[in-house]
């Protein structure tokens, strides 16, 4: 981990670990959130795609990316595995109850093909989930693109 990554993780974990989750489906929550994180960290687009229902929507709000169904979601994952070859997702916290959930994460790596800067970044975000039958039917990722652009040196001076 870079210094920036350690700093982001330390801050996020210190805040979220202070709150104990007391939900009824702890095992299920950990399982789906952990499988989501593991699939991204395995750089395995099939393992990502299989987490989703056939009619799933996966959107990345900051990047403006909208993907429908496992095939488009697989291609979305493949793009990031190619563009960020050392991509890593760290689980910060998760909750899952009654078909709704969240995975708070830190996404980090080296930008080889998103903007092609060769610089590293780390950003904290959240996946807001809807689930059905143990699979994800909606995944909306929210993160701060400005945090990434600033670390890559792509923001105008002062911003």
């Amino acid at each position: 981990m870079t210094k920036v990554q350690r700093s982001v993780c330390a801050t996020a974990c210190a805040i979220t670990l202070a709150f104990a989750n007391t939900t009824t489906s702890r095992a299920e929550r950990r399982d789906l959130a952990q499988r989501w994180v593991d699939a991204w960290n395995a750089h395995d687009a099939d393992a990502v795609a299989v987490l989703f229902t056939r009619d799933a929507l996966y959107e990345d709000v900051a990047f403006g990316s909208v993907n429908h169904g496992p095939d488009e979601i697989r291609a979305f994952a493949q793009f990031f595995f190619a563009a960020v070859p050392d991509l890593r997702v760290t689980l910060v916290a998760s909750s899952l109850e009654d078909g709704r959930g969240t995975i708070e994460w830190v996404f980090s790596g080296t930008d080889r093909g998103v903007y092609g800067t060769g610089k590293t970044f780390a950003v904290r975000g959240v996946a807001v989930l809807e689930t059905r039958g143990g699979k994800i039917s909606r995944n909306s990722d929210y993160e701060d693109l400005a945090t990434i652009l600033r670390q890559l040196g792509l923001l105008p001076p002062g911003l």
Partner: protein
Amino acid sequence: MTMTDVHVLDKWTAAWSSHDVDQVLALFTDDCVYEDVPFGIVTRGKDELRAFAAGAFAAVPDLAFQLTTRFAAGTFGIIEWTMSGTHQGDFPGLPATGKQFASIRGATIVELRDTRIRRNSDYWDSAAFMRQVGLMSI
């Protein structure tokens, strides 16, 4: 889940759209932790939250939040929203532009204690804000 749990989430968007700091503070526990993730701001307790809310209302006097979805179960809640307003005063590192922003999407993750919010983490994209008020073009 009780009706009250969801009710506090409904009040969240209304309070932030009211420009009334006391309406915002009423939704939170005395020991609340409120995070604005993009700006890297963490406030602890109501005095710090009061200052944060006053700063937000000064920067965007017509701040408005539209509720997209909300969910609560037990101690856990989610609010998805769209934020709009006019950038009349300075934000951290973002001097006032006087320009409007119309559609910044975000999500707030909360932990509830009884009927109040104990932890609040706002996730949104400040690049979308900068783009809409003309501070950047990427």
